[in-house]
């Protein structure tokens, strides 16, 4: 029982990252109809910027400068978001009229570039991020196990971010404008709303969310150029299972699948890496549109 609880908690730990990434994908997909393959790479980028800010700036720039974890938590999403702005403005924007697969291919190319760049300068098996704040470095005794405070923080923080995003999109005026922009961009523009800007900002927001997840992940996992690639394919399966219908769907299926994966590690470890894909097959067979997806 203890084992199960412990593994469930670790599963949730993974689940919040699934949720944050599939949420970002869903937000971008919702407005741009594009699957951002580079989402994983942006997650990786987030972790690397945090790492570089903490460990390498001084060495590279020759000035004494270190960007701590809390600062990274704010700065990195902005920087990754900025990259999102550039990608959307300079590249993606020109592809909207074409088949959506071109958006997927473009972002795949960007993924290769980002991965390759970081593989050049950093060990592919990962570099540890030493910047975990002192205040979070302890352990919490949960009764059934010791759980690192930081991981608990990551879980709670991600949940807050996810639900805040959900609230923002589903329950605010800005959110309703976004949804209107999705439904009828021309008309929304005719009302004087700057839809291209909304699109850019949404893409940037999704990217920033991935970057944020990266910063959160950095102290837990070592920072590696491939960390996003390994994750993104699982997140794709999560998205297929959840369906792109709703923001809440993306969050819930991310969390649930993280848990399921965690529990599989106890019940039948060899299946842990594939259980989500098999669930995807089941969903495809019985509910092709996904659990939360809208029937066509």
């Amino acid at each position: 029982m203890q084992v199960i609880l412990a593994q469930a908690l670790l599963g949730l730990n993974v689940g919040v990252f699934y949720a944050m990434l599939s949420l970002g994908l869903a937000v971008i997909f919702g407005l741009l109809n594009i699957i951002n393959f580079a989402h994983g790479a942006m997650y990786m980028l987030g972790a690397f910027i945090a790492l570089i800010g903490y460990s390498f700036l001084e060495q590279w720039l020759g000035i004494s400068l270190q960007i701590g974890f809390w600062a990274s938590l704010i700065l990195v999403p902005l920087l990754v978001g900025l990259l999102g702005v550039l990608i959307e403005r300079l590249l993606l924007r020109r592809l909207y009229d074409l088949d959506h697969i071109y958006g997927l291919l473009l972002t795949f190319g960007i993924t290769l570039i980002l991965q390759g760049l970081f593989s050049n300068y950093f060990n592919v098996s990962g570099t540890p991020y030493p910047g975990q704040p002192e205040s979070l470095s302890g352990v919490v005794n949960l009764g059934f196990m010791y759980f690192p405070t930081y991981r608990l923080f990551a879980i709670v923080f991600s949940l807050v971010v996810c639900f805040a995003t959900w609230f923002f999109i589903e329950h605010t005026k800005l959110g309703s404008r976004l949804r209107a922009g999705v439904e009828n961009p021309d008309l929304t523009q005719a009302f004087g709303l700057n839809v291209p800007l909304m699109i850019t900002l949404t893409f940037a927001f999704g990217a920033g969310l991935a970057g944020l997840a990266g910063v959160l992940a950095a102290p837990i996992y070592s920072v590696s150029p491939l960390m996003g690639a390994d994750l993104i394919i699982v997140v794709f399966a999560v998205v297929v299972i959840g369906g792109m219908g709703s923001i809440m769907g993306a969050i819930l299926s991310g969390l649930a699948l993280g848990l399921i994966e965690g529990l599989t590690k106890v019940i039948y470890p060899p299946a842990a890496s594939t259980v989500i894909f098999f669930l995807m097959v089941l969903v495809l067979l019985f509910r092709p549109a996904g659990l939360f997806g809208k029937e066509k």
Partner: protein
Amino acid sequence: AGALSDDKIKIGVLSDMSGVYKSLEGPGAVIAAQMAIDDFGGSVMGNPIEIISADHQNKPDIGASTAREWIDAKEVDMITALDNSSVALSVQGLAKDKKIITMNTGAGSTALTEEQCSPYGIHYVYDTHALPVGTATAMVKNGGKKWFFITADYAFGHSLRDNTGAVVESLGGEVVGNVNAPLSTNDFSSYLLQAQSSGADVIGLANAGQDTVNAIKQANQFRIVQSGQKLAGMLVFITDVHSMGLDIAQGLQFTTAFVWNQNEETKAWSERFHELHGAMPTMVHAGVYSAVTNYLNAVKETGTDDTETVRAKLGEMTLNDMFVKGGKIAPNGSMLHDMYLVEVKKPSESKSEWDLLRVVSKIPADQAYISMADTKCSLVN
């Protein structure tokens, strides 16, 4: 120079240049090989000595196809490094067909000199038989009877786990569980929790490099050691200790073939290496230097680069240099030499950045390595 097949000697350094094993061999191996060539004078019998190097990315197919091209089209005479057992096995197999010497310094699997031994394959620095002899024996004798393994899921990890398990059981211990973790795992937490709930005394880490570092660090995060279990890194390199820091690593015991500050000779060489590489050499770096040097010696002494002749000469030589004293290359390819059980110093004991290890005991070559009487290698019996 008529005796050489192609007017030059070309040495291939095939290593993990970007992955888990980058820091323990990788680019450092190219530097060590170059040092050996330079110390040798840069040429043999008036023929230049060249290095070609490549990244096998820990993928045996990439390793094998690179080696295939080196042999078929680039006239490579000897291949060294090969720091991944899967890669080493595939390249050694290919080199056997192609009649090329491999001097593997980085891989550990005993299969290289046992079931899959090759007349041209030399296993130079350590193997998964030698590693547990020191470490596991010491741990079991200190009361670590029940073992749980976290194993790198490929040839090397399996071999290390099996050999360690055998040592543990032969001393009256017990293996209570095992979990296979993929090579290059980022998050060991769920494996560690399984190990924790198994009730084992010792968690044996049958992995290497970055994987070992991650596992030990995360064990620290989850307070595994504080809860009463011991960690045993079955293959630890000085670079791993350096990257973990003494706070986390102190007291860890493991087996190694080389300690850089053991004597003046090793110290002098290691400091030269540090100069070029920015880090102290691992046993593997020192091994590459020694292997290349001795290969060149054999070529020079026989006056040819013919594989059979050079291999025969290497078998006859007694190897003495800063890395090895009185080493012998056995017919199964195993280079028999002494190993050391070392312990990581406490932060208070360490005098400099790289002053990390203390030698506990020496493990004589005949204990460390499988004897020719017991070997399963078909070349011997």
